[in-house]
């Protein structure tokens, strides 16, 4: 089952340049979400006695490809969990004018919030096509559900092309390569018609070329949707991030452009003690102009 046909390997991977599909997919019906933004205020998550996320404020607008970084345990994933209803939280998280906290996960998803997971989570026993078709179908009625799928819905076809998995549409998702699974997940977010995309380490384990392709894709998506990316890869971040939020011990440590946060002494201090970052060029040190976390917020 591991013998993914060699002929297909040539053309896998997001293909943003030939992006008629991108326009078709991203361009459809974004009007109702245009100029929407994610607004998090005073968000707090506790597990038992442990405060995982402490009074986080965060604003992300459309067109601002936001990266969320921080050492392990900083609360990045928990923050996403809270926004998507997986972890119960206090405070406020609004998107498209709607309060997200306190609602069921599937209802939040229906309001246009989608996410991916650290370990790509696709339905391994279903084909690529079936995965996308399910992602596209949350609003289907019983009549449609109880009938067999005939043909491929337009958005699914576009997504297949966009994430470069057209040739593998009938392959069981479980046998896809790691990067392909992550593209599939992104594709699922797109057909799901998510307008807030929360991506948890989307390029982990990818080759350099694959990262570049993914980054281009994210940039394209980010221009039309609200996108938050959790990522450890600093090179990737420098190439594609419009802005960065640094979290540490459940709090927002700094926020701003890549350059801003790289020069932030607080950030430097945290990261020097942490081996997680594979950053080949460490921040330039304490003599750089200090930028306070509160000040950089205006950039957002």
């Amino acid at each position: 089952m591991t013998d993914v046909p060699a002929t297909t390997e040539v053309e896998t991977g997001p293909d943003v340049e030939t992006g008629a599909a991108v326009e078709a997919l991203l361009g459809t019906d974004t009007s109702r979400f245009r100029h929407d933004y994610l607004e998090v205020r005073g968000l707090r998550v506790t597990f038992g006695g442990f405060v995982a996320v402490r009074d986080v404020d965060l604003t992300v607008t459309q067109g601002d490809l936001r990266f969320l970084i921080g050492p392990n345990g900083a609360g990045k994933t928990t923050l996403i969990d809270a926004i998507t209803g997986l972890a119960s939280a206090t405070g406020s998280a609004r998107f498209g004018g709607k309060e997200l906290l306190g609602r069921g996960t599937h209802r939040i998803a229906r309001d246009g919030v989608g996410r991916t997971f650290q370990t790509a989570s696709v339905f391994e026993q279903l084909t690529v096509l079936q995965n996308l078709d399910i992602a596209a179908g949350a609003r289907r009625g019983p009549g449609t559900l109880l009938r067999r799928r005939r043909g491929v819905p337009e958005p699914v076809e576009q997504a297949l092309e966009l994430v470069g998995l057209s040739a593998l549409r009938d392959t069981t998702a479980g046998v896809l390569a790691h990067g392909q699974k992550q593209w599939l997940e992104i594709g699922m977010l797109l057909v799901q018609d998510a307008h807030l995309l929360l991506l948890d380490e989307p390029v982990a384990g990818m080759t350099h070329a694959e990262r570049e392709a993914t980054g281009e894709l994210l940039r394209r998506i980010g221009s039309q949707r609200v996108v938050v990316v959790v990522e450890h890869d600093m090179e990737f971040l420098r190439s594609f991030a419009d802005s960065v939020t640094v979290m540490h011990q459940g709090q927002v440590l700094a926020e701003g452009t890549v350059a801003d946060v790289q020069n932030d002494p607080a950030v430097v201090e945290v990261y020097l003690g942490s081996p997680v970052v594979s950053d080949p060029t460490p921040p330039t040190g304490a003599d750089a102009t200090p930028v306070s976390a509160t000040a950089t917020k205006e950039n957002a």
Partner: protein
Amino acid sequence: MNATPRTSDRLATLLRPGRSRALAGFALAAVLLFAVAPVLLSPFRLGLLAKFLCLAMVAVGIGLAWGRGGLLTLGQGVYFGLGAYLMAMHLKLADAGPGGVPDFMSLYGTGEVPWWWEPMRSPAATILLIVLVPAVLAGLLGWAVFTRRVRGAYFAILSQALAAAFAILLIGQQQTTGGTNGLNGFRAFFGYDLTDPVNQRMLYLIAAGVLLVMVLVARQLMVSRFGELLVAVRDGEDRVRFLGYDPAAVKTVVYVVAAVMAAVGGALFVPIVGIISPADVGVVPSIGFLVGVAIGGRATLLGPVLGSIAVSWAQTTVSEQFPSGWIYFQGALFILVIAFLPGGLASLVRRRRRGGAAPPDPRDDDAPTDPAPPDPAPVPHTEGRPA
């Protein structure tokens, strides 16, 4: 769209028998059930087969709920019993005549028919209730536990306890349910004399027809988008939730379908076997339903049916020869299949098929998309996450 056969398509196709094969399979089954069996088998063996077909109906539902939906339901005896008891109540009342009192009530009870027996005087109401009561109970229970995300082992154990409680309840209400004796001694089925061999054959044919219809329903559910969604819920309930679906609804639907199938099987079991007692609905028979499903192949369409019939048949014939040997045989078979061949015998068949040539048109399949990878072990991953 592009219809050129792709290499990857072949892969997918290999997992699915072609449409012609499915059609041939159904036709063969229909011929066997409707033409061959009634001719070849003695009335006694035909009656046995009819009973096995009723049990196979439960298996179809379990195949859907467990094989496809990942819901290990250890309490199907409850729904089987509901259908059976409702039917048995009707038959008892019909035997007693209009306004009459079933014999056992005057013997062991007050000689008054309790109010909740009354609707079963009407044949139409009985048939309606046989479907409605299990559907409503399964719907309520399923919705309650699934929305609270009780799943995996928790659900299995709860459903098992439900079966235990149901049997105790039945036994305790001797005056109205017949207690351990259950309900038996029926004379007629909707006016037809049950001792007449012609009518017994008719019952067999009805059972065969109903089973075929159920298999078709199951097939439609499996190949539909709902079937794909069901597999998705089984393998990644949380992921499905993040796509905007409510997995509880999906699970509840399949649980209800399985419950109704079990109830219909139970309802037909009663006139065919002539008795329903708590011994047929408790914990042990409930697990017994799973044996055939597991051995046949839980995630396939026909695996549960064939497995269930084969196991019942083996139980009858082997136990005729070796009473205690049957238990070793059944136990060992069950252990070996579950541990080493989780896809059931169906996965052996499919494994062999993979060696064969691919059908001409890869997309022209009419069979249920089987989500289980053929090799090495189709593991319907169920959430066993402890917290």
